[in-house]
């Protein structure tokens, strides 16, 4: 086999296999993002509560996810939980658990930040205009909060997508693993590895970049 190794990607269903591998991490990322939004909201409400215990609890949680590399958390859940609790979790379940643990805290902090960044006089002015409490939220507070939150939440989502690549390290057959299998099959094509990893790099870029552009655009537009 001669010529550029990029043809390896178009042999048989190799490209579809690669996309299938990418979908494995993207699906994990989507589940994580969904769960992080739900639990993030709860986390934010907990952070804003007046109970000191709740605040300390959130603070400790947030510091843990800020200090621990996600890979360490993955190892603790994937390898450690079987020993500590006797739970033998598979790679994908561990990943969703860990990334949601992380994502919910980060999302919660973003929601809290967005909520508290609205000046008090906004609510007071709305009340002075005669809006009911529900109307104050519906027409004044929630729209402003969402405008501040959305670009940051999209940014966090791209971080989650990039971080899910780590499931490679706990034996989930994602895009890098599929790439390695393809390279193994075409070992006679020496530069296959170059092209396969280059294309995986581009695939990730093509997935994350539109979100980055959208986030930047919304930030400028709604600033």
């Amino acid at each position, binding site marked *: 086999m001669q010529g550029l190794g990029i043809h390896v990607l178009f042999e048989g269903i190799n490209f579809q296999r690669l996309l299938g591998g990418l979908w494995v991490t993207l699906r994990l990322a989507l589940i994580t993002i969904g769960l992080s939004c739900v639990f993030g909201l709860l986390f934010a409400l907990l952070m804003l509560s007046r109970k000191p215990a709740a605040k300390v609890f959130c603070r400790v949680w947030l510091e843990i996810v800020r200090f621990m590399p996600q890979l360490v958390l993955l190892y603790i859940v994937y390898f450690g939980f079987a020993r500590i609790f006797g739970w033998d979790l598979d790679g994908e379940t561990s990943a969703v658990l860990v990334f949601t643990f992380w994502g919910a805290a980060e999302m919660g902090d973003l929601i809290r930040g967005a909520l508290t960044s609205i000046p008090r006089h906004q609510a007071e002015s709305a009340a002075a205009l005669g809006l009911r409490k529900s109307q104050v939220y519906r027409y004044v507070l929630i729209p402003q909060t969402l405008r501040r939150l959305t670009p940051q939440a999209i940014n966090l989502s791209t971080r989650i997508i990039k971080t899910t690549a780590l499931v490679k390290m706990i034996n989930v057959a994602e895009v*890098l693993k599929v790439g390695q299998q393809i390279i193994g099959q075409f070992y006679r094509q020496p530069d296959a590895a170059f092209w*396969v990893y280059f294309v995986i790099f581009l695939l*990730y870029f093509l997935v994350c970049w539109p979100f980055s552009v959208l986030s930047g655009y919304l930030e400028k537009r709604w600033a």
Partner: protein
Amino acid sequence: MDWSFIGAHVPDYLEGAWVTLRFGLYGVLCSLAVGVLCCLVRYFRIPVLRQVAAGYVELARNTPLLVQLFFLYAGLPRVGIRLSAEACAVIGLTFLGGGYMAEAFRSGLDAVDRSQAEAGACIGLTPAQNIRYVIFPQALATAVPAVFANVIFLIKETSVFSVLAMMDLMNVADTLRTGGGRTVEVLFMLAAAYLLILLPVSVAATLVERRLRYAGFGDSRPV
């Protein structure tokens, strides 16, 4: 928890921590240099280089380090570019970090209102003085929290260096785990090691941020 096992393996972890710290530091320093360079190229609108820098920042920020490392370490040698694991580690971390640092510096410069530079010029400051006394301190005050967040992020990201067969903390833990079966102790030490590395960085960040806040103007002053 088997404390004698933990005591016996502290030296292994110290060696791993040294690798993590050393290559983390190289990566951070190179990232700062690349970040400043990219930021300046864009700030002074140098043609061509400016587009190159913008493209690079997008590539770096929208792809996972793990994928970048696979490309560097397993892909490039197939087209004749052989790099040692250590070189891949530093280049990979710099590629990633440079993009993030460039964005941090840019947000700092963007935060300095144009009227500041104009006012500086009006009172007779030379362009160099204007940068030294007016623009730079204010930009730094805004950029520093993001820069420190990036430093912590980059040190955490070094945890994937184990795919390069480097004996960093992650790899030390993995070797002990597969060798001895003391999973809980191994993971406990791993988490403790990252905490001990990152806690001082975080404390330093808080101190430096507090010191630099003097340069704030108007609303940016602490309440």
